């Protein structure tokens, strides 16, 4: 066993101020979990790769803010990840602040990484589960979800195509998404 494996996350983060390999060990522990988190939530390995890079760069930059509670630092790391995801969805682009601060080069995503990230996030299973959940929706609700989410149409247009009010269209989409979310719960 590598001596670093007996060290806690907090010890590794603290040691990384003078020993960057300690941060490497910290990365080894959590990289797959963070990447999988992003793949499942974005459905896009490219976006997930970008977000994973920014999350770990941000974790290194702000490592002194980590408070050691004795628990693994994954919760802290996923807190950073959620923040990065929220910002990316709002701004429609991934932040690069932490990567720029560390002067990191952008890494291209090769085909093998793309395929493996999809596997890591179990995207194939996720897509199948969503298709099955969509198939279980009533036709009106399924069409509303399809027009709004897959077609990216505004609610007014969804309502016009369904021949209903905009409010009714919103209700159908919400109902459909809730049903899909429920079916994806483990």
């Amino acid at each position: 066993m590598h001596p670093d494996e007996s060290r806690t996350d907090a010890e590794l983060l603290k040691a990384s101020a003078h020993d960057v390999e300690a941060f490497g060990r910290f990365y080894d522990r959590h990289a797959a979990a963070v990447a999988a988190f992003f793949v499942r939530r974005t459905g896009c390995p490219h976006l997930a790769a970008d977000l994973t890079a920014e999350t770990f760069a941000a974790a290194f930059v702000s490592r002194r803010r980590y408070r050691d509670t004795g628990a693994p630092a994954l919760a802290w790391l996923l807190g950073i990840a959620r923040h990065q995801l929220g910002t990316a969805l709002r701004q429609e682009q991934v932040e690069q602040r932490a990567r720029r601060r560390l002067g990191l080069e952008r890494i291209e995503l090769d085909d093998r990484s793309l395929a493996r990230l999809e596997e890591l996030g179990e995207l194939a299973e996720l897509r199948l589960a969503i298709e099955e959940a969509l198939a279980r929706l009533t036709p009106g609700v399924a069409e509303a979800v399809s027009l709004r989410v897959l077609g990216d149409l505004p609610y007014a247009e969804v309502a016009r195509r369904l021949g209903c009010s905009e409010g009714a269209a919103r209700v159908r989409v919400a109902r459909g998404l809730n049903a899909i979310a429920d079916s994806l719960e483990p």
Partner: protein
Amino acid sequence: MNDTRHLDIPYLTALREELLRGAARSNRRRRRMLLASRIAVLAVAIAGAATAGFSLLGGGASGTQNADAAVLQHVRLAVTPPAGVVLHEKTINTLGGLQWGYEFWQRSDPPYSYRVIKGPTEAAFTGSTIETYDPATNTISAQPDPQPKLYDDPVAKLRELLAKGDAQVIGTTTIDGRDVLKIVAHSSNDMLFNGTIYVDTKSYRPVLAEIQQNAYDCGHSSPCSGLERIRFLAYEYLPATADTLRLVSLEAQHPGASVAAAPAPTDTSTGQTATTPQASSKPTG
């Protein structure tokens, strides 16, 4: 304890290498900043020792002490303004939505003549008179001012405050890509050094000052209050050549201007000439 799933994903292994390279660079930068901060603290120690009458650089020291003394001497020179120069400062000041420019040139040798431009006002001290320039009439008004002036170099002032313990280095940060020391100063009689001053970690020259103003005479109908930010666009020591010495002279800057002797203000209670405090002191930034 390790999750090894990322090892067969080339992107994630490449990201690990890149992160570690960036982390190493960041650590090296941080160590340099810490070193700079410690040097500043050393400078305080030097000045403090000098105040107490010690001689850190005395003879008869061992080899190690000589090496230390060389470092200390280097630090001391870094924070000691050079002599025989023209100090040039240029700032942009903002306070409560107001913004104005300030530019100042002063000789480092007696009688410390200077020229200053503050907003629309341009004035100079020649060594015996205070002069103001009126661009509307292209006239320089001169008024005798026998009060001696001081060499007003913020770096010298900061060194003095650090030595007295009236200023402390509280950390490091970056402004416009420059590594700076963050210094909090509490000077009872100096407007610039009552707040937070950011100085370059290498040259110790000011980059930014943030000062809380409570009733600043900004030239408006009522005094301004709030946080004044003084951003230094230039802070340099110019060699005292014929060209640079012209920078401290109103006559040299406005060669076609007529010079008129302004009537000295009169103290109505005694009938004697009074020295106007504002005219005899350098307008502050």
